[in-house]
């Protein structure tokens, strides 16, 4: 058997190719639109995992940032431009702007307070798109979006949306991997473990937490943009607080705090939620049972369990 460091080095070297190959191979099995759905959800899980997995802050309101990206996309298409690349920038900027504004309030909190304050803002956002700003957002009916052709790039084609979404996922994996292996990422993990001690090493942890929050919101907004690119309309379900459980579950099932865990979790959740309902009417019950099994038996998630088999135990280290 190859040593664990060899496995992880090889994976890191070819991870983007492997991920691209898996999503390419899934097209005949899943259909192109569904594969695109899977890809987009993985982008969202990656954004969420930066906060939850790396920084240790569980958010019950991350649909807000996905929703902001989705609504910014539709509103920009309705009122500003049809250029998809300009809209992409607007959507990400909108998500990050919400992160900039809400971050100073939210990142000062921890634990249940952090989770619930996010949920509270998500509820406010949901109320605003359904009722408060319904004149602009279309309320319960939502809005349609239209994207113009840019040269040969036509987002009316499902293949183009698929390819673009896959490129966005690969870019996100690359970005999150670079971020989390940089000093910034090491510090986020330290904040998760013991923030006070990180402070005493000379770090203003608030600034780093805020930055991570903004980046996470931006990635979630990118997922929102890609969703609208895929479906060409937005409804309040893209900001529904009740759907937060999806991303939390995906993060847990894959293995929080790992780029590949987030992708595995995203794919696993989408497989369960797309295919289990065909066989079990109340499939959500299965999610509950699966969550119990995860919490009690596989706390590190699928990816954590698999890599755990490859990592030497403490006794092996001691004997080394």
């Amino acid at each position, binding site marked *: 058997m190859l040593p664990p*460091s060899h496995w992880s080095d090889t994976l890191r070297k070819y991870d983007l190719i492997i991920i691209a190959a898996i999503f390419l191979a899934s097209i005949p099995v899943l259909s192109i639109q569904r594969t695109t759905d899977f890809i987009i959800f993985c982008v969202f899980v990656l954004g969420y995992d930066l906060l939850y997995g790396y920084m240790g802050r569980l958010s019950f309101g991350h649909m807000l940032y996905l929703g902001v990206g989705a609504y910014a996309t539709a509103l920009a298409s309705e009122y500003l431009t049809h250029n998809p690349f300009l809209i992409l920038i607007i959507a990400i900027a909108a998500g990050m702007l919400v992160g900039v504004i809400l971050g100073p309030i939210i990142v000062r909190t921890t634990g249940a307070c952090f989770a619930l304050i996010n949920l509270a803002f998500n509820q406010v956002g949901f109320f605003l798109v359904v009722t408060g700003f319904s004149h602009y957002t279309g309320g319960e009916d939502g809005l349609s979006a239209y994207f113009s052709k840019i040269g040969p790039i036509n987002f009316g084609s499902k293949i183009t949306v698929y390819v673009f979404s896959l490129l966005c996922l690969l870019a996100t994996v690359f970005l999150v991997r670079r971020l989390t292996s940089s*000093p910034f990422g*090491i*510090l986020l*993990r*330290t904040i*998760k*473990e*013991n923030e*006070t*001690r*990180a*402070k*005493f*090493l*000379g*770090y*203003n*942890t608030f600034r780093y937490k805020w930055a991570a929050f903004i980046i996470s919101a931006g990635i979630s907004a990118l997922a929102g943009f890609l969703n609208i690119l895929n479906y060409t309309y937005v409804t309040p379900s893209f900001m529904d607080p009740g759907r937060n459980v999806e991303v939390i579950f995906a993060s847990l099932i894959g293995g929080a705090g790992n780029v590949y865990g987030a992708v595995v979790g995203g794919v696993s959740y989408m497989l369960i939620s797309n295919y289990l309902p065909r066989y079990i009417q109340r499939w959500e019950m299965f999610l509950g049972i699966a969550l119990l099994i995860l919490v009690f038996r596989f706390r590190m998630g699928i990816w954590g369990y698999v890599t755990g088999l490859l990592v030497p135990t*403490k006794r092996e*280290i*001691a004997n*080394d």
Partner: protein
Amino acid sequence: MLLSVMGIDVAYGHAQVLSDVNLTVGVNETICIVGRNGAGKTTLLRTIAGFLAPKKGYVVFNDHNVQGQSPENMANLGVRYVYQDKRVFTKLTVKENIQLAAFPTNATDHEAIDTVVNIYPKISRFMDKKAGGLSGGQRQLLLLGRALIGSPKLLLVDEPTEGLAAGTIDEVCGVLESMKGKLSCIIVEQNLAVIARLADRVYAMRDGRIVSEVAERSQIEDRAQLESYL
């Protein structure tokens, strides 16, 4: 003087923990603080480090009043705190633990690793291992090495030999001894042999007050006298 603590009172809520504490530390001087459990030794270190704000009095470091400064500011001013519980960042590798201490300073990764390896050469074998797998002694030496990164001016070390085997105590003492004359240290310690070996001066604490200052070498080595404060 590098550090002057002047008449500080510190309380946890209504519970007064330190009362009118005065203490000075000269440049490159090693001070030991002795006292029973609950005497306020750790609270004093935590106050100097910026974790607690005194209700009264001043903390002057390097001719600046640093009262109310945050722990991160104190760290950036050159104060390092080595905790009593020997807790490293267990989920990070040894190398990442060292790198983390290097980032806020001007030290490069290479310099930071060299600093730690210089005081504990064996650590180079564990660089890519999770720090959670290290023994208590290895953790203490890692923490001491990490605290030395970036040329600190003052080291606050809380019970560095507590719970360690005799051989490891000697190793930790050797490291602290090697720092003498290079930077200032305040060491909270109960082991009188260690105090005799390291201290230039000793402060004894009881019930949140400094009750005695011992500066004579012969008195520092007089175990019977110091034992009366324990």
